[in-house]
Structure formats: C-alpha cells, structure tokens
C-alpha cells in the first residue's frame, strides 16, 4: 500500500515493530493486539476492543498516540451524546456578537439600497461570512479528521451511547468524512487510527461490528502481568512482584462479582510498595485487600481463603520460577 510520507503512521511497518514500539512507551502488547493494530492501519478500519474494565483498552489508544507522537483525540460516550457534541457546532455566541458589532457596518453597506429586494441581493453576498470555518467549533470527530499527520481517535465506551449515535457514527467511520451542510464535505487527508472500546453494557449493532476489526482483551497471563506491573511500578522487587501477581491470578479464579484487572494489580503493587512490603504476608494482604477488590461481598468471599492463597503464592511454584527469570527492567 502506497503511503504518504508525511503521515505519522510510518513506524507501523510490521507487527513486530508495533509490539516493540508499544513496549518503548510501557505498553506490553501481545501478538493479537499488535496484529489488530497493524490490520487497522493496513485496512483502514477501526478497532473495536471489548473486554473487562481495566485491562488496558483505553490505554492502548493512549500508548499508540504516545509512541507515534500523534494527538490523542478522545470522545467519551454517554447516554444522550449527539452530533453537536461529537462532530461540530456553530459558535452561536460569536456569531451573535459579530452581527452586533458589524451592525453599523452593515447599515452603511445596505444604506444605499433603495428597495428591500436590493438590500437582500446585497446581503446575500455576505451571508456565508457567518457560516464559515471561522465560526465552526470542531468537536472530537471533526477535529480528528483535520489532523494533517493523522491522529489516534479514541471513542470510549461506545456501548453507553444511544443507538442513534451508533448509526450516525457508521457514516463517519466508513468514509472518514463529515458533511457540514453550510460548508460542504470535509474529508480527512490522513484518516485517523480509530479505536472504539466497549464494556458490553449493551449489545452493539451488527452494522457497527461489521465495520470494525474485533479485538478482545482479556485478563493477562502470569508472565505478561508481571511485565506490565514492572513497567508501571518503579522499584518493585522480583520476589514481591512474582508473589503478588500469583496471588492476583488465584483471586481471579475464585467466584467473585468483580474480578480484579490489571489496573487493580498495579494499584495494589503501588500500595504494597508504599507500605514497604518486601514479601507478601497475610496481614498485609488483609489490610490492603480493598485496593484489589471493590465489592464488600467479594472481600467477604475471598477473606477465609487468604491464608491459603498467600501460602500458595509465596511457596515454590514452577510457573513462578520460570517467570522470575526475566531481567529487571524497573
């Protein structure tokens, strides 16, 4: 595919390059994620990311923008979000102010006109003045189209928006262009890299899904989680890291309402580090469990097993030994 030399997408030459690039900004990718990003760029299609909260869906967009040095344009969806908030709006206030200021000037200009017809024809020469790009307030979608080097457009929690908005989004996402009736069609010179995230609050429409590449990010395995925590938390010791990740992984296997995700693991690691914990012990875990589990009932469900889980997490384990062989990057 012929590439414009001026775009900011240059570094995405291969799947490996993407994995390595994301690594430099602290995002530990896996091949599925990098593949999706590579294809999104190659096929010019948005990526729809699904998965539990806190596994790095939003973070992928942020990391991509950081790595590629492109602006991150974020559109947070919510119920009632409409075109005016997402695409563009006229700056009514400014238009009004300008008409007031220019009133005298207009009077002067129109003063010479004898009849109503005359003044109308004179006026028609100016009317575009107030509906010009100058008075156009670009909202995230339009803003993303206007970036010369491309951009990363994050449409967060699309499942929270109304179906009407979803349908409206289809047009924008398939052609990367928007139509402003008073001005005309604005087409993106360099289409943005679009990332949509969904927490599955409601089932998305088939039409939208069909236009997107589908990527599911689940909970990470032991090794990847260790690497992520190491990249995010400075100065954590290998022993503690290995133990706490093993503990979190075993918590995820229990039957609880809200399983802790990477965000919680990172928070917990920071908490333990603040408390100067060098290894995991039961008292520490009990005191800080509310960082990891966000529901009272979940804490109650896990509590009786803490002793056993801590012993298992700190005891010898083939998996643990293997993973701790990684060089310390922190």
């Amino acid at each position: 595919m012929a590439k414009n030399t001026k775009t900011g997408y240059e570094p995405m030459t291969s799947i490996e390059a993407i994995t390595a690039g994301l690594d430099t900004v602290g995002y530990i990718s896996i091949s599925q994620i990098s593949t999706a990003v590579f294809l999104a760029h190659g096929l010019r299609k948005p990526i729809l990311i699904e998965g539990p909260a806190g596994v790095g869906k939003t973070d992928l967009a942020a990391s991509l923008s950081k790595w590629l040095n492109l602006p991150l344009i974020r559109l947070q969806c919510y119920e009632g979000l409409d075109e005016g908030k997402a695409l563009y709006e006229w700056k009514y206030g400014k238009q009004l102010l300008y008409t007031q200021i220019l009133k005298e000037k207009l009077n002067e200009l129109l003063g010479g006109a004898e009849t109503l017809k005359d003044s109308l024809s004179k006026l028609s020469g100016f009317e575009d003045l107030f509906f010009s790009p100058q008075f156009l307030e670009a909202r995230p979608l339009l803003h993303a189209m206007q970036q010369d080097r491309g951009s990363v457009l994050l449409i967060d929690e699309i499942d929270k928006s109304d179906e009407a908005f979803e349908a409206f989004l289809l047009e924008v996402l398939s052609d990367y262009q928007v139509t402003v009736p008073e001005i005309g069609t604005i087409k993106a010179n360099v289409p943005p890299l679009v990332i949509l995230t969904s927490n599955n609050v409601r089932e998305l429409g088939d039409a939208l899904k069909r236009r997107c590449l589908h990527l599911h990010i689940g909970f990470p395995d032991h090794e990847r989680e260790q690497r992520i925590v190491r990249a995010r938390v400075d100065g954590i010791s290998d022993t503690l890291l290995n133990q706490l990740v093993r503990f979190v992984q075993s918590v995820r296997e229990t039957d609880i309402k809200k399983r802790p995700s990477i965000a919680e693991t990172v928070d917990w690691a920071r908490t333990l580090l603040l408390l100067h914990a060098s290894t995991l012990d039961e008292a520490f875990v009990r005191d800080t469990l509310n960082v990891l589990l966000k529901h009272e009932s979940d804490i109650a469900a896990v509590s009786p097993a803490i002793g056993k889980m801590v012993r298992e997490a700190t005891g010898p384990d083939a998996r643990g030994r293997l993973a701790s062989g990684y060089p310390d990057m922190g």
Partner: protein
Amino acid sequence: MEKQISNFIRALRSADVRVSTGEALDAARTVAMIGYDDRAMMRDSLACVLAKSESEKQIHDRLFELYFSSAPAGSAAQSAGAENEGEPGEDPKDAAERLSQLTQQGNEQALATAIERAAEQAGLNDIRFSTQVAYFAQSMVRAMGGEQLQARLLEALQGRTPDADAEAQRLIDVRRTLTMTARERAERAFQIFGAAETEKFRDEVAATKRLSAIEANDMARMKQLVAKVAKRLAVKHSRRRKRTQRGLLDVRRTMRANAGVDGIPFNVIWRQKKKDRPKIIVICDVSGSVALYVRFLLLLLFSMKEAIPDLHAFAFSYRLKSVDDILETMEFDAAIKKILREIGLGSTSYGQAFSDFKMEHENKIDRRTTIIILGDGRSNYGDPRLDLFRDFAGRAKRVIWLNPEGRALWGTGDSVIPRYEPFCAQMSHVATLKDLEKAIDEVLTAYS
C-alpha cells in the same frame, strides 16, 4: 489461496458465523498483507477481521485448525495436476500401478494431493451430515480410479497362481489404504462443513420439542438455546425508548436550546414520548407437571435482565413466596432445585396464592406492569378468588396467562382456566421454547 479463503469463509458461515461480502474481501486483503507463512499470525489476523465476538472467535479458531491443518500448498496441487488419472479410458493396469505407487511409503505428499483433487471432484465441501461420510469416501476413491483398481483386482484373483495371489493381496492393501485415507478426509470435511449444520438441525428440533419432554442430557443444549433466544429478544426490545412526536412543540426545551441566539427558535425541539420500561411480575405454579416449564420461563426471563430491569418472580403451590432472592444469589440450577423443594409441596391453590399476593405484594403492581402467570389453573376445587384476580388485572397493564396444557383440556376436571380467561389480555398454550419466545416477544412488544 483465494479459493482456500473463500471455502474457509463458507465453512464459517455454515457454522453460524455471519461473514459479509465486505468482510470476505477484507480477509483476502489481510492474507495478502500478512502472507500465509506464519500460521499463528494468519489465524489471529483472520479472527480479527472475521469474528465479531468472543464466541465467534472460538468457532473461528477451531475451524481454522481443522481447515488449514491439511490443505496442501496450492502449488503442489497444481504441479501434480498434469498426470492423467482416474479417467475412464485409463488402462486398468496403469491405474492400479499408479495407485499402488501413491500408497507406498514416502509418497505421502502425492497421496495427499491426489486425495484433495478427488475431494474436489466428488464435491466433498457439500457434505452436511455424518451419514454421508461413507458415500463421499467412496466417490473419492472412484474419482481416483478405484474402478480400474477393482477390475485389475478381479483379474488378479482369477489368475490362481501364487504370483497372482500375491498381486491380489497387494491390491487389496492398496484399496484399503486409499479408502481409509479418503474416509479420514471426508470425516474432516464433515467436521468443517457439516458438524455445525447438524448442530443447527438439532437445535431446531430441540426448540420445537415439548419442554416437559426435554431429557437431562439435552439440558445443556437447551440452556444455550434459551440464552440465544434471550439475547435475540433483548436486542430486539432494548431499542431506544424515545419517540419524537412531530407537531407538538416542547416550548421549555426549545427556549433553552436557543438561549444563545436571543431566544429566536432556530432549533425547534419537539415533544418526545417516552416509552415505558417493561416491568414484569411473573407468578409461577411450581406444582407437579408445571414445574418443568417454570425452569425455562424463569431462565429465559432472568437471562434478559438488560431488557427487563424490573422483574419480580413469585412461586406458589399452596402458599406464594417471592423467589427473587434465591434466583439472584444462587446458581440457576441450584436455585430452581431449591424453589421446587421449598415451595413445590402442598396441594395447589390459586385462590390462596392470589390472596397471599394481595396481602404482601399488591403494591408492586402498577399501570406499567405486565403480570405473567404460568400455570394450568387446576386449583383442586378451591375458591379461585376471581375477585382478587379481577382486581390485579384492573391495576396492571396486562395479564398474560401461559398454560402448558393443551386447549382441549381447559375447563375439564378441576381446571378453572375459562373463568380466569376474561380478565387476561391473552391466554396461550405454551409447550415449546418457540411458544415461549413468541409469548415473551408479545409481552415486550406491548411496551414499544
């Protein structure tokens, strides 16, 4: 390779993964971009483009392994195509020789290629049912020149010399190897193209089977089916809940929206009519024969929480109790067991159940509520308390009665169904999952 991809997409479609033409094109572009040297990468890429949910991804990955595990490199199939073979005119001796060559050690690649070509001639991709495996295997052997081999074998058998006997034995082995290889290939084709079709057929059967006749080993399938139905209904009925009414100006909102332009109404906002959110109260008779149906109705309704946020369930045989807590806190099967054990005892009394409901839960009924009653209306000759029932029906939006008994039995013996019927917006016979789906669909449609 394009052919491989399009066949693979066909297999996906037959496994109920909806792949549009646009996606098929994307798949082709993807393969062109990624190449097909790295299988894992190709699998991930295609999954990304073709699968649109977690479950579809699983189907995709399974089919990918099946499909691409054997497909020979396209070039090998073409280069070997030059040999003449399997044509009716071929000399039996040559054919037999060629085939026995194929089955010898070291010729696996050539054999695989020949099998693939035979599969294509036999139209193996049309396989749909497991009973067709033998037929397709035979057609494949024939396409490879099996008839000539057979003729040669008969000739050898008639020779009656030690040499001829040895020859015959050798040819029998050749035939066996060929048949087995062809069978394996046909079996795999069935896994790819047919297995899902058979599943679909079984699902179809299960959906129209009487719910009381579902056997224990079909329960897992039924649960999946119910989940599918629930999803379908939920998607259909969780559409947006506002409808613009053109012609009625919403003065307040219009003024606010245009405050920035001096209150000149540039943007006119019309009054909107909000649709009611469905509110359902379901009252189940859990005695005797009806108990089997309760399970499915509750499973269906509780799988649709997103479309029916306001759902209350009650069960009774003699006394009526709320079962919301049990259903929400326990795993579904265990919950049903507990409900049946705790409430399913005692002789059925609709009158008692309605008076219990009146005493404790009547305030849950409002004009948005649909009351669904699942029961056979056999009340052991007790007072049906029509007065209470009429009262409920008056307060609620609608009352729907689902009866597992056939219409012919209504009103026979101790059935008091006909006396309740005048107060119900609808009274229907529900025997299968299809009936259930239709009934719930109607309930929810009344809210749009």
